[in-house]
């Protein structure tokens, strides 16, 4: 008889499931301001610790502290808050519009607003993002017209993408926003290719790749890191770790490595973890990585630690797989509330001013929605033509499509 222990399969499970009480005490969160800020030309080997820590700027009292603080003026921070509030209001209206049958599908950002809104402010016009479906803050903060976003969501006659794409799979080349695929992970390696092209042409522009925690398991992620590392591509590679890949907790994709950021270490790519619910920290880390890329120092991998408060999409119900109270227990708080508290503490914002801003933002969103709906919604009013379905498959329509 074989005395050796029998093999068994390890299938990771989250610590809590529906009905359990969330316990965030095991999440190790360093105090704000405690993680050092290395020079951008640092040897990646010297900052391996940053792949296991969390860079934070805003402390519990709303004070911006430590070496990563101070990358934005008060006015810029106030504008940042407005971007996040706008995105939140936009989401709220569009989720409702989907429930009203004005579109087939929607994906909201609740809890993750800081990541894309703050990152956009570290980029220059001409840079190119290769986003996933949860970075609409890049468009909002970049000044892309909300009405065009809604026209796309409603697949109406004014849809810039002519009704061809699933709602929220925007494309806005002039705003540095690559066409969203919906095929997870594919854009990550394309971002590296865009950056390589910029380097081949001795340009100044850089690119930014985006991927979710779950999709880091795709081969595209690894190909992106190999190519970025080998050719020292001027690219910033972002992992948005919002803890959940639809119903699958992040431990399934992460496996035995301590963090997602740590994946960069084996490729010799500087890897940083940042508090994704801290607008100021995201901006500071983005600025650091963007400067590295711009100075031809190569790629950076950033893990944004955040939490998907909402459902994955309008087709998802998270209460089936995680405790309803888990988001309240999330230790990094809410990005909008945290930045609001910071501005109040700085003396340039108030509860009253905030309420007023919320109303203004909602008015702007509603006005945009009214304008978009004049062009139609998915099942009512103006819609793209059937001709739009056949055109644009090729530059020139081939005979078999003409017949």
């Amino acid at each position, binding site marked *: 008889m074989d005395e050796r222990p029998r093999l068994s399969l390890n299938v990771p499970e989250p610590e809590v499931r529906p009905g359990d009480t969330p316990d965030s005490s095991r999440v190790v969160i360093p105090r704000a301001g405690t993680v050092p800020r290395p020079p951008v030309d640092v040897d990646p080997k010297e900052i391996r610790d940053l792949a296991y820590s969390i860079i934070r700027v805003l402390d519990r009292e709303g004070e911006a502290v430590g070496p990563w603080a101070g990358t934005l003026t008060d006015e810029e921070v106030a504008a940042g808050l407005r971007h996040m509030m706008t995105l939140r209001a936009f989401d709220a209206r569009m989720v409702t519009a989907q429930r009203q049958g004005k579109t087939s599908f929607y994906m909201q950002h609740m809890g993750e607003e800081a990541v894309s809104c703050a990152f956009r402010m570290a980029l220059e016009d001409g840079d190119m993002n290769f986003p996933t479906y949860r970075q609409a803050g890049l468009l909002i903060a970049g000044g892309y017209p909300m009405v065009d976003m809604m026209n796309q969501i409603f697949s109406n006659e004014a849809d810039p993408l002519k009704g061809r794409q699933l709602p929220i799979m925007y494309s806005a080349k002039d705003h540095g926003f690559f066409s969203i695929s919906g*095929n997870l992970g594919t854009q990550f390696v394309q971002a*590296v290719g865009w950056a390589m*092209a910029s380097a081949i042409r001795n340009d100044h522009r850089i690119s930014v790749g985006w991927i979710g925690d779950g999709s880091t398991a795709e081969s595209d992620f690894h*190909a992106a890191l190999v190519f970025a590392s080998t050719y020292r591509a001027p690219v910033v590679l972002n992992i948005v770790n919002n803890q959940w890949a639809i119903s699958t907790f992040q431990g399934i994709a992460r496996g035995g490595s301590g963090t997602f950021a740590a994946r960069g270490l084996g490729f010799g790519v500087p890897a940083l973890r940042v508090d994704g619910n801290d607008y100021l920290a995201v901006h500071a880390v983005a600025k650091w990585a963007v400067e590295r890329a711009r100075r031809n120092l190569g790629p950076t991998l950033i893990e944004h630690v955040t939490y998907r408060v909402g459902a994955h999409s309008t087709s998802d119900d998270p209460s089936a797989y995680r405790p309803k109270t888990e988001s309240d227990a999330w230790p990094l708080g809410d990005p909008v509330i945290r930045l609001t508290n910071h501005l109040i503490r700085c003396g340039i914002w108030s509860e009253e001013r905030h309420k007023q801003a919320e109303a203004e933002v909602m008015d702007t969103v509603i006005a945009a929605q009214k304008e978009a709906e004049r062009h139609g919604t998915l099942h009512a009013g103006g819609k793209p033509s059937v001709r739009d379905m056949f055109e644009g498959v090729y530059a020139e329509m081939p005979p*078999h499509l003409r017949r």
Partner: protein
Amino acid sequence: MPRMTMIEAIRSAMDVAMGRDEAVVVFGEDVGYFGGVFRCTAGLQQKYGRSRCFDTPISELGIVGVAIGMAAYGLKPCIEIQFADYVYPAYDQIVSEAARLRYRSAGQFTCPIVIRMPTGGGIFGGQTHSQSPEALFTHVSGLKVVVPSNPRDAKGLLIAAIEDPDPVIFLEPKRLYNGPFDGHHDRPVTPWSKHPAGEVADGHYTVPLGKAEIRRAGSAVTVLAYGTMVYVAQAAAEERGIDAEIIDLRTLLPLDLDAITASVKKTGRCVVLHEATLTSGFGAELAALVQEHCFWHLEAPVQRVTGWDTPYPHAQEWDYFPGPRRVGEALAAAMEA
């Protein structure tokens, strides 16, 4: 006029394209310093520098993925997949990304890339160096699919493909690299240096995509073929003494349907050839089109001669390969019906 092998003609096409347009870049596995395992890119790195012709990691997904990003930037990558058999890791990038980018972004982003890959059997390459995956690409809206059969066409088609605004799958029949192979594996092959199609002009010229060419005019039966099978068809027709009209399709997508229907309406008979497996192969599309457009002219059922529906074998290569004997039998059957 200079004489070139198909390898030299393909290299010349890339040389011409790189010389005319700085946006053209060439890369792939072993493509840079060494010049490719089939030598198709030899000398290009030396001539145009490492940033325009370079080696890549062994990641077909990565090669195609970065090419798409480069195309979105404004470059025109002409990339090599070392064997068509290796393309599958890149399939998602080709099908979901390259092919649809223009459409899904309403023309904001386009994907003018060429994906070159050696295709087909006849070199004792076994299942991983012999496949003909063209039907996996002709099924995809947004791609163009090209299969040249001689050096002159290979150069003109490749330049046309590089200049094309959309993604092109460029399948190079590796058994034709050094000479026209007619399927008689036990006989010597005439090198391209002694074949008229080995005369290849220096400099720039194009062969338009989407245009077939009649290789042998005839009146008895139409043979639809591409790549290596063009020569197998010629040998079979000659050996059987059948006055076949052999059409070299050259581009499978978009297809030159006018050339096909004109010929079949004349002959009333049609045999379709390819090395790839039978079921759901490109021959099925050809047979369907012929019956849709030429039904009242047909005197006999459309015949298909293809590889068997098995993985490509090693020792049994010549039992698998649709050689002149099997093609000749199909020609005879089409004539008898």
